């Protein structure tokens, strides 16, 4: 056992450190910030789903915001109309969204990846007006207001015992989101290392060769899309929990773009990428809005222009620059630097150690 522990690859240790950090985080930040981090984790979960799709099957969805909306509304309707416990509705929302995503993917995936991008983008633009229509069910423009979640008593007591303060609803939301994030992370990790994951990567790297090896192209592509929509559905459901309400305007096209930014920044085919991407995509506009006005060296005119433009300009510039200069995202940059450093220390290029070369460009 001790031997096994010592020979664990470094990435297992990294995962452990990150998980411990995330578990301890609410004890060092205040309740409001825990709520913000819960939102960032929600984005990370949706990005994880997007990553499975893009990074491991070479398909692109520009409409994952719409699938988040679907998940959020399924949960909200089940919780308010049918008085179900919100936490019970989360997996239901995920599975239903996954099923609908699967069905949506069937026609869109028959042709090249372009058509899926096109159809999902159209879906993202149409989604808000589609939500508004059945106003009796979805609450129309106003949306649905949700009750803040109450942490269960034993957990709250344990938390009070450890930190000295009772657990707030924001902190509880954070832990629920984190728990789901860990489960889904574990799922993705296992999925991508086994048969389905290898098949999806083979499709990404060469459809014709994959088909010639007996991989059911359409089947696996649609499966990847369904799984990806499942992740988005869970994320959407948790989004409702974290935001306290769902409305058509919570899910604009910009949300889908934000998810894409997160996926690209983190690294499209990396498993830790979504966490970095989610944190980046969520905090970038908030932090830059607070930071820019405090910087006196930036001319007032430029500062106000940046403020007025909102995150769109930054998001757009980030998408373009990363795709040109670092198509594997932050994880790719760090991984590349680490590989070079190790190569220099050990003096052995990958070829001689018999390792597979690192994944080349992933999209």
């Amino acid at each position, binding site marked *: 056992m001790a031997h096994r522990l010592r020979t664990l690859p470094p990435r297992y240790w990294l995962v452990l450190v990150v998980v411990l950090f995330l578990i301890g985080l609410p004890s060092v930040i205040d309740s409001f910030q825990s709520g913000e981090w819960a939102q960032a984790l929600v984005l990370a979960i949706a990005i994880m789903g997007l990553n499975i799709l893009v990074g491991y099957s070479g398909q692109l969805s520009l409409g994952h915001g719409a699938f988040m909306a679907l998940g959020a509304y399924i949960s909200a309707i089940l919780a308010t109309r049918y008085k179900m416990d919100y936490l019970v509705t989360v997996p239901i929302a995920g599975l239903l969204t996954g099923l609908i995503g699967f069905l949506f993917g069937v026609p*869109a995936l028959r042709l090249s990846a372009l058509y899926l991008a096109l159809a999902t983008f159209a879906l993202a633009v149409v989604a808000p007006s589609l939500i508004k229509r059945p106003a009796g069910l979805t609450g129309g423009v106003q949306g649905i207001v949700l009750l803040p979640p109450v942490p269960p008593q034993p957990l709250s007591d344990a938390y009070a015992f450890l930190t000295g303060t009772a657990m707030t609803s924001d902190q509880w939301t954070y832990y629920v989101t984190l728990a789901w994030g860990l489960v889904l992370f574990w799922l993705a990790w296992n999925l991508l290392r086994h048969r389905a994951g290898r098949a999806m990567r083979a499709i990404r790297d060469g459809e014709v060769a994959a088909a010639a090896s007996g991989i059911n192209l359409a089947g696996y592509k649609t499966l990847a899309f369904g799984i990806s929509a499942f992740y988005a559905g869970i994320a959407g459901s948790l989004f409702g929990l974290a935001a306290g309400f769902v409305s058509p305007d919570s899910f604009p096209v910009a949300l889908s773009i934000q998810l894409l930014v997160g996926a690209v920044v983190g690294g499209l085919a990396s498993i830790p990428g979504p966490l970095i991407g989610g944190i980046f995509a969520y905090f970038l506009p908030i932090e830059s809005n607070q930071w820019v006005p405090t910087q006196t060296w930036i001319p007032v005119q430029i500062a106000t222009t940046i403020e007025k433009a909102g995150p769109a300009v930054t998001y757009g510039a980030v998408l373009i620059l990363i795709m040109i200069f670092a198509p594997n995202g932050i994880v790719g940059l760090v991984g590349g630097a680490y590989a070079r450093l190790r190569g220099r220390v050990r003096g052995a290029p990958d070829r001689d150690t018999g390792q597979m070369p690192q994944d080349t460009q992933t999209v």
Partner: protein
Amino acid sequence: MQEFLQLVVSGLATGGIFASLALALVLIYNAMGLVNFAQGEMAMLATFIAFTLINRGVNYWIALPLTLVIAFGGGIAIQRIVIRPVERAPLLTLVIITLGLATLLNGLAGAIFGYVPRSFPSPFSVQTVDIFGAYASYRDLGVIAVSGVVLLAIYLLLQRTTVGLTMRAAAHHAEASRLLGVRVSWMLALGWGLASAVGAVSGIMVAPIILLEPNMMQTIIIYAFAAAVLGGIESPLGAVIGGFIVGVTVNLAGTYLPFVGGDLQLAVALAIIIGVLILKPNGLLGRPSVRRV
């Protein structure tokens, strides 16, 4: 019946706008197998340029060609700066970059011009004429005529001039063209410039109808996607026919299907996209795609 004819005529007019933007999409698709998600935002920016020129007192008929020239140059500049570094990158990289470009241009326009909708002049009056019992405004007829002229101009350029021939050669057989001395990358840039100018026409035509603001093209581009997919995404003629069909269908559906109404017309475009993908994936005039190993 009269209402039906009326709807068809005004549908043809909006269809002409979709057709121009779809044609711009097809031009870039043919040049590099890419759907340009920034096409609508490029057109929006060009329309703002035209607006600024007209506001400064430039005559409409001088501002219009000037804007098209600027849009043409802008399209070439975008290709040179943003697309050229990743010309050989995988398709999805390019798609993400055009989407980034769309976001960037939208944000820039919002920062520079603000989000207040502005009225934009049209050279055609809104007075109506009687055609077979339906009343069509001069503006509608003007839009239909302009899209016809644009299509004709693009057709003549691509099929009857040396530049057009070189562009088509560069798109279809890049390696062979390069060996024959064609500067393939510049031909792609030319394609981007042309698409940008054609798209600008759609922006300038739609602005008088739906008011000019940075998010103006966000829905129009979806209709244009539907038009391009319906017509067969590589066929210029298909894009124009698709545009007119989408325009008329959306107009009729908005009036005759009670659950669609005014606010779900965009969903009709989505339904068209998905319907085409299920029933006739290559569109009306497209050829079945052949994949090379």
